[in-house]
């Protein structure tokens, strides 16, 4: 007997359960409530955006917002920064590839499920057998060459995360244990059981977040667990420094990483977002859904502490589908209608450039 038995049982049960008639009065009540909820949320987001001061006069002149908090900005550039130059590791037609600043593409033969993240040691990917592999890179541009992939775990995993700094690997094995270890190390510095229904969404040093339907989003550090009260179910979470950024179906919600309290009292409305290294900046983009509702497409950089935001210029890719930081300054954007467009943006230069176009569905960005 095979899983066909499950299939047959589900279909037979579904066919046998009587469907109630539609309660139109109750349904119209729900539609009205949903409209009120959406209207209120948009109004709150607009008020929040208008109330905050405009983010830093010029990002290029003063360095990144938030750097003043406990760090100095002595290394801020003297003049306008150059445009985006960092190579972008991507999944291209199911294989690991690197897109150079000039649009040249270096393709590997490695078939992958995802690019997990870029680190100083190479690119972390999950291959088609669910093994985590670190692929060293050498050379530059389209001449980038891929070193021998190293299996970082030695067994299939359920999920894997790399922290924002690219130093810590977190993975859940097939026995529902979360392992935290320094990238490239053979031993864990921490391990913890994870309930089968939990998803590990982010790791950062010895901290991690889980999401389950029963518990919601939980922030773990050592032996302490803190419930994080998101307004909507968490789809993604990013954790770095003092910031926990949670992507929900209704936008990014930002929390204090120390205690899980909301920093802005609700969603900031951006439906595509990515938290930068250090936890001081969130890059956001207009989604297709937001564009359909009349919002202008664009890329914004948002101060994770004040909510102030500033647009990045030169972007003409329409609604975005995904964002990923590729280093401390540069962000990759996946966009395009009827085709995939890869844009690269420099926060310091406040500028974006089209890097590559590909057939629809061919491109995927690093996940963390």
């Amino acid at each position: 007997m095979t899983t066909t038995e499950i299939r047959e049982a589900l279909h037979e049960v579904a066919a046998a359960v009587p469907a109630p008639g539609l309660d139109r009065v109750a349904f119209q009540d729900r539609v009205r409530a949903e409209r009120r909820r959406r209207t209120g949320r948009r109004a709150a987001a607009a008020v929040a955006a208008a109330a905050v001061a405009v983010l830093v006069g010029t990002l290029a002149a003063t360095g990144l917002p938030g750097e003043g908090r406990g760090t100095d900005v002595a290394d801020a550039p003297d003049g306008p920064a150059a445009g985006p130059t960092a190579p972008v590791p991507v999944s291209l037609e199911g294989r690991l590839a690197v897109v150079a600043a000039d649009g040249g593409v270096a393709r590997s033969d490695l078939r992958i499920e995802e690019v997990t993240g870029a680190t100083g040691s190479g690119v972390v990917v999950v291959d088609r057998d669910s093994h985590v592999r670190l692929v060293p890179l050498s050379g530059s541009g389209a001449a980038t060459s891929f070193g021998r992939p190293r299996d970082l775990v030695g067994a299939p995993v359920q999920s894997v995360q790399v922290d924002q700094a690219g130093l810590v690997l977190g993975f859940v094995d097939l026995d529902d244990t979360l392992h935290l270890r320094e990238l490239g190390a053979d031993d864990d510095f921490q391990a913890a059981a994870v309930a089968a229904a939990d998803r590990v969404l982010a790791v950062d040093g010895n901290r991690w977040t889980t999401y389950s339907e029963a518990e919601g989003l939980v922030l773990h550090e050592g032996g302490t667990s803190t419930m994080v009260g998101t307004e909507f179910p968490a789809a993604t979470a990013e954790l770095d420094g003092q910031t926990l950024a949670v992507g929900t179906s209704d936008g990014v919600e930002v929390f204090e990483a120390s205690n899980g309290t909301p920093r802005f009292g609700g969603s900031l409305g951006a439906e595509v977002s990515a938290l930068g290294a250090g936890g001081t900046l969130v890059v956001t983009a207009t989604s297709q859904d937001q564009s359909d509702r009349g919002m202008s497409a664009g890329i914004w950089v948002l101060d994770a502490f004040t909510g102030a935001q500033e647009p990045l210029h030169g972007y003409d890719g329409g609604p975005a589908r995904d964002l990923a930081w590729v280093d401390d300054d540069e962000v990759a954007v996946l966009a395009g209608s009827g085709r995939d467009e890869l844009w690269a943006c420099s926060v310091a230069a406040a500028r974006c450039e089209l890097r590559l176009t590909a057939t629809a569905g061919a491109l995927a960005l690093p996940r963390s």
Partner: protein
Amino acid sequence: MPTEELRFEEFMAARWQPLFRTAYLLTGDRHDAEDLLQTALARTCVRWDSIRDKGAADSYVRRAMVHEAPRGWRRRGREVVAEHLPEPADDSLAVRADHLVLWQEVRRLPPRMRAVLVLRFFEDLSVAQTAHELGLSEGAVKSQTHHAVRRLRAALPDLELEETS
């Protein structure tokens, strides 16, 4: 009534029953299924004009149900238990006895694991499509399927369930 609402009415009338069945398999409870489906359809209704491919509306509602279901679980977790006792397994369903036993065990699976089974084996989605709808990696979908089958096999050794790709 605006045109788009008329079209939504037609969609809802045509798809209410099949979508209810999916909701029932996701929740394991008829009252919860009706609640979940109404919420997902209300969300779909107010966004109807932004759904360009109306042929994909089923998928939109399904994703709304998958994403909305956790709120129900969390809400019930805060309620007094006596106010919402889970519906007992419905022995009155006219299904084969061994399928009913299997369904009872499926209802006991963790919600996301159950959702993986429903999307893969009832909605006939691929591993990649299931991963996309649930926000999981393909590896996680495979492992959730593996764990689900392992649990069902342990609970029902006589069924001798095996995994197929």
